[in-house]
């Protein structure tokens, strides 16, 4: 992948021309034009197959580089578990809001599920639109605080 990238960066244009030379006897094309207006002439035509291959390779290569950069970023900047021992107090008000499938209002930072082990689907804009699939005893992190799903008791 790195090779492909470097090739694309440094030899991309030459590569395109090489392919066009390989496929066609001339490097100048007069393009047909369905619309009927004057078609521009371009110096080289990479050929349909080459466009598909080059296009997909570049798209995958560009996104692959972003992928690797994200992996490195995750290694360095992933949130730690410094606040893992912090527990949230039970909040009865929030409990009322947290019906199955409910969207929790922005001002609600934490969600505490108090159903008897029933799986609940909660969306919390406070943490982006992060999805929580929670059971009693499960934990989740929001705003650097680890919350634990309780049964209606203060933790």
């Amino acid at each position: 992948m790195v090779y492909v990238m470097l090739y694309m960066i440094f030899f991309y244009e030459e590569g395109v021309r090489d392919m066009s030379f390989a496929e066609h006897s001339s490097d100048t094309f007069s393009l047909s034009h369905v619309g009927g207006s004057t078609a521009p002439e371009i110096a080289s035509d990479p050929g349909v197959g080459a466009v598909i291959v080059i296009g997909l390779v570049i798209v995958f290569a560009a996104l692959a580089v972003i992928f690797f950069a994200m992996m490195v970023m995750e290694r360095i900047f992933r949130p730690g578990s410094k606040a893992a021992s912090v527990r949230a107090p039970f909040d009865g008000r929030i409990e009322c809001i947290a019906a199955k499938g409910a969207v929790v209002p922005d001002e609600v930072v934490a969600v505490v599920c108090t159903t008897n082990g029933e799986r609940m689907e909660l969306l919390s804009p406070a943490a982006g639109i992060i999805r929580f699939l929670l059971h009693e005893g499960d934990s989740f992190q929001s705003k650097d605080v680890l919350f634990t799903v309780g049964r209606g008791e203060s933790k």
Partner: protein
Amino acid sequence: MLEAITGFLENTGIAIIIRDLSWQSVLMIGISFVLLYLGIVRGFEPLLLVPIAFGMFLTNLPNTGMMNMEIFSGTAVDWAMLSAKGGLLDYLYLGVKLGIYPPLIFLGIGAMTDFSPLIANPKTIFLGAAAQLGIFITFAASRLAGFDNLEASAIGIIGGADGPTAIYVTKMLAAHLLPAIAIAAYSYMALVPIIQPPIMRALTTKKERAVVMAQLRPVSKTERIIFPIMVTLVVAMIVPDAAPLVGCLMLGNLLKESGVAERLVKTAANELMNIVTIFLGISVGATAKAETFLKRETLLIIGMGLVAFSISTVGGVLFGKFMYWITKGKVNPLIGSAGVSAVPMAARVANSVGLETDPNNYLLMHAMGPNVAGVIGSAVAAGVFLSLFQ
């Protein structure tokens, strides 16, 4: 006296319509009403379809003088003609002709986009790449249909399901196809909930659709701030022609994630975005005059656009199945369909098709990863075409 009355009557709108309105213009006005119906009654992308349709309606009324395409028929704008006879829509169209609107819309999209699902699950970025398959396959199909490289590139980019990108590429490579491509691109984006689900169901098994994916990890603010800078750098190095689009997308996102430019974020995501959307929609719609729109290639473009969009969906879902196989069932292939960049509609569709199989399986956040990756992917694909053919 009688002459004055006759002269006045001859210049009324009714007289002009009776005298000058052709059946082609009537047909175009009918099409604009259909688009208005789709936008207003059916709710398909109303923010875009309504201004596009109304622009189409306005421009096909005889003698309004609001849009004079001859000003823009050359490679450069005819400034003398613009100042002499330019109408309101001509001035608004400058933003399209000069390539200003699409990057500004990307700025607004960036200010509204949360890349956290992608950062939390980086491998989903490849779904955003795979879902660009339709762009390149349709490029080949368009060449076979007789379009030249420049036109085929503009038609293929419809498969990215990204209106601003389609307009940007078309304006650069085949401006004469702009109305047809813009309308096709936005129509298919609006029809995502109708086009994608049958393809998704056909390509996946019930077992695959029922996969519950693991909860996403939290993403730190530092990651969210570095991400837009890093993406801009990578894209500018590999495909510089995509830099205007990706750069503006990432600037909007950086403003949002930095947390220090709240006023700018609000402006980019609301006022600026809305103003540009109105200008873009109405001026693109106004280019759809009967004499330029009612051609055989318009039908071909609309057909090719559907092919592009469908193949992109197929590419995303098939790569999703590949990831399902590689990860031994940890990735739900449905999220691959969201790799086309219609944000957030495609992610919602992936979510709703998943819910059909398991009412407790919410895929929305997982699908947002490939969805935002698709925006980057289609911009890169656009950059490829621009660097090859511009």
